[in-house]
């Protein structure tokens, strides 16, 4: 039945587009062609490409749009969810400075799935809706009601994903965006850079069986009590790719769980990695680690040092051995994750990756595949200013 409705919906889209053409605000670009692509959720979606306007189910997809159009990603967006500004205010400010038009993009909701405004989304007449697979911060491409309503309004929904299974889905998603925007060449250029960056780590790790124990504390400073630990999803997955072993991976069933400091003192992980949700332009980051756009090496290191004052931290061997690092929390949801994986591999296996330069990877990413410049620090240790720019 579901399939029938879906196929009917697709037929409706095809006939509608065939009959009326796309209903964009402005006249459609010439040389549009109709393609049917398979999105990351496995749906076949028919879209007229290149599209002119899209809506984003997560505002934080915008930098990924920038991978394909480093000149001006903002001009593609008719509407987006508002969580980019809220969750990553510093990066948003970078875009604001360079593309003031970002503030004119219509908001189709704030930062939660329930706030998605379907009517607003339809009224913008986008050529395509780009949603994540899972909801959470925005509408999910799997939400049948939203899907069907948009289909009825001739707005195809395409699912992309950098979060649920980034290793498999990030390249797919970039290809999909490339197809939608008519930027296939740029997509392939990026994927070459991406695959090569991960392959370097993967191939060298094959030469060693050593897998040090890693504890990843998620979103330091958010809860009063210690410690929210990452399970095997989101960034927890990066630990494996980077040649470490998530010490709590086996016992946390979901994305995260609370671990007592006693358990940490007993486990004594070799490495302690905190994910940073503090931002440089936000006052009062409390106990958070400050990383991301506009963060200075000094602030980052100081804020990480600050968290070692918590109960029991001084007794952890990882902290005594200076195996305490922090990484920007939003890496979990962007193809930029290649740089994070490289940096983590370098932490866990310093000798093996002595010649690898994740900072260069990050620099290249921003130079060639981003609309804004690299201006900030995305990982840190506790020694102020030692993280090269």
């Amino acid at each position, binding site marked *: 039945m579901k399939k029938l409705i879906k196929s009917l919906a697709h037929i409706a889209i095809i006939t509608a587009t065939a009959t009326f053409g796309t209903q964009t605000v402005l006249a459609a670009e010439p040389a549009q062609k109709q393609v049917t692509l398979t999105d990351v959720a496995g749906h076949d979606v028919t879209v007229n490409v290149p599209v002119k306007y899209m809506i984003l189910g997560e505002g934080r997809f915008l930098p990924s749009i920038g991978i394909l159009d480093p000149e001006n990603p903002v001009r593609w967006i008719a509407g987006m969810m508002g*969580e980019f500004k809220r*969750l990553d205010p510093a990066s948003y400010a970078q875009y604001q400075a360079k593309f003031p038009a970002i503030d004119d993009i219509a908001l189709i909701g704030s930062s939660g799935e329930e706030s998605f405004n379907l009517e607003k989304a339809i009224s913008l007449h986008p050529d395509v809706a780009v949603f994540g697979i899972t909801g959470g911060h925005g509408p999910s491409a799997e939400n049948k009601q939203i899907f069907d309503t948009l289909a009825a309004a001739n707005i195809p929904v395409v699912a992309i994903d950098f979060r649920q299974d980034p290793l498999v889905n990030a390249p797919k998603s970039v290809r999909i965006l490339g197809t939608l925007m008519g930027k296939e060449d740029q997509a392939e250029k990026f994927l070459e850079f991406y695959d090569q960056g991960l392959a370097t780590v993967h191939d060298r790790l094959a030469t060693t069986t050593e897998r040090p124990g890693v504890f990843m504390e998620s979103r330091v400073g958010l809860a009063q009590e210690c410690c929210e630990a990452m399970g095997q999803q989101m960034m927890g997955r990066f630990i494996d790719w980077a040649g470490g072993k998530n010490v709590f991976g086996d*016992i946390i069933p979901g994305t995260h769980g609370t671990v*007592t400091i006693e*358990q940490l003192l*007993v486990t004594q992980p070799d490495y302690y990695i905190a994910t940073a*949700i503090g931002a440089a332009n936000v006052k009062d980051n409390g106990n958070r680690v400050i990383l991301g756009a506009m963060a200075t090496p000094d602030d980052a290191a100081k804020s990480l040092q600050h968290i070692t004052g918590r109960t*029991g931290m001084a007794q952890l061997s990882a902290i005594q051995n200076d195996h305490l690092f922090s990484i920007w929390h939003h890496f979990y949801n962007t193809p930029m994750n290649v740089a994070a994986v490289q940096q983590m591999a370098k932490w866990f296996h310093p000798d093996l990756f002595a010649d690898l330069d994740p900072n260069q990877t990050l620099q290249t990413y921003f130079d060639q595949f981003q609309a804004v410049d690299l201006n900030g620090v995305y990982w840190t240790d506790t020694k102020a200013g030692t993280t090269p720019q």
Partner: protein
Amino acid sequence: MNHPTPKDVAANGNVQHDDMNISQTAIDAVTTPQSDHSLAGQYRRFILRRILWLSVLAIALFASVIVNIMTGPALLTVGQVIGGIIDPASLDAATHVIIFDVRLPFALMAVVIGAALGLAGAEMQTVLNNPLASPSTLGIMHAATLGASLAIVFNLTFGLPESFVIPISAFAGAILAMAAIQFLSRAYGASVDTIVLFGIALVFALDALVSLIQFAASSDSLQQIVFWTMGSLARASWEKIAIVSVVLCTCMPLAMRHVWKMTALRGGEDYARSFGVAVERLRLLVLIRVSILTAVAVAFTGVIGFVGLVGPHISRLAFGEDHRFYIPGSVLAGAFILSMASLVSKHIVPGILIPDGIVTALIGIPLFLALLLSQKRRG
């Protein structure tokens, strides 16, 4: 309610007999007509049986605390823990942290918070004459949640360390809610119905405000609010234990001073008035006490429901309506439920803490049902 109340006894003149047959009566839960027919004898057995059960509950609580301190992922031996508490200098740094900064605060926080909620719930059920009343009935907990949510969303600091800003805001919210109820009650009469209806209005209004804030909050703040509302004892620290203990030790004697009046109130408001109890005044006084207890408990741990509702019921099933026993019984029962819950929350998945709010219900319900069914069997 078949027991002779102490008031009846007092009305029956002086106690004359002296009966030494204690052990038998302690075992025998039902007064047998053969043993001692005198009212005084019956009354003595009534008292002794309750003191015995209070002692059993206190011992059970003590045992649960000991087990709580002795167990954990670190697999310390009993000798190590006891030796460490007696002579802290003999411990290495990590073990010292485990015993003094993790296990002891966690175990003791459970006791003081459970006791505070048990006491608050017991008094609430009596003054509102409502078996479903609990510290959250009049919106005190909701108000605390609102206070905490505001502090989180608007990043209030008041120039204080973060670990105290949220508790202070939560406390302020709870106290304001209490002040509102007091004000309205004084202005419009403090009958049970009026207070409960004010309370209900407050609950819904505060709930709506919290939802509104959550709706407008960034998901970052939203997560923080959700974290906070899922009560957790892992926020324990010695200062917090000290603050809650001071409040508890202040409120407990005050509550015990009111036991006769409260017992009379269980017979109905007119009955209590006939003894000269100023019912409305008593009610408002007790509400102030309950609010402060609730506010302090919630401020430090977040919302832990259920204990304040079921602790008093367990006590009532075990001790009846005589507040000399019902009040301490509720305190012990509340402390015991939360102590057991904190013990279990550590062990469901070793090394991972399951939020205490979830576990309390799982612990309290079987205990409550067992007592309820045994009472029903006895008729």
